[in-house]
């Protein structure tokens, strides 16, 4: 368990990492959805 010493920096490093992961994921999914509405199904060969 994380002790009080340096807890802010240790927890902060995890928080920053997970926040970055979530932000990048949301950005990627949103961008994909936005573009999917504008291109034809032929331009989405993976579907």
């Amino acid at each position, binding site marked *: 368990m994380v002790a009080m010493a340096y807890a802010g920096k240790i927890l*902060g*490093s995890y928080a920053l*990492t997970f926040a*970055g992961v979530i932000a990048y994921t949301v950005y990627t999914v949103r961008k*994909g*959805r936005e*573009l*999917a509405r504008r291109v034809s199904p032929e331009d989405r060969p*993976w579907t």
Partner: protein
Amino acid sequence: MSTTASETSTATSPVAASRRTATGTPFTRALGLATIAGMVWLAAFGLLFSPQDVIQGESVRIMYVHVPTVYLAYLAFTVTAVCSAGFLWKRTRSLTWDRFAGAPAEIGVFFMAIALVTGSLWGSISWGTYWVWDARLTTSAFLFITYLGYLAVRRLGGSHEARARRSGILGVLAVLEVPLVHFSVEWWRPLHQTESVKTGKIEDLMLVSLFVGIVTFTLFYVWLLLHRQRVMHMEDAMDDRGLDAALAERQREGAGA
């Protein structure tokens, strides 16, 4: 055969349809769920189960997010180089190679940014300072800036082939910095510690926690790679469509004059 109201609304809603078929597939959805599970495991192992280090104390917990992100950045930049070579080699020339070169470069920059920030926080505990211009940190910063430049070069404009050619050359050359960063701790013996896994300094639960981190971020990397590549594919398709429309308009103007 009768159809329920909810089935009809789902089948006809363009928003729902685009959500289902945007960049996701059953495989990427499974990958995403595995990544979420891995992140929970990582937080549990890194913050709760793993013991503190004899020398570094509690700060060693930062290693479980710092080291995997560095490893994934190396992997991403290497994939960029391989796929760039795939485009530059005439026999395999295809824009798919270029998109599979561009997507990991972006992901690598993201992971490198996290590695620099978490490393800086770790350094502030271990060394008493957020940053020193030692060999490992300096080469890492240089690597990060180089790939930011690579991403800027990809956005310079021109045809997709021109973009692929110029960024392909840069992608093949820039990867030479990766061994420079990795071996900097052995060649120049800076303040940054040397590799701990190969030398057996990490074992038991600490090694398991690090392994969980590497597996989790690798899953996330593959998920991102597939999605980003598909986003780039659609962006290119949109560009082509815009170009086709502009050419058609010119032809109509020419015919009318």
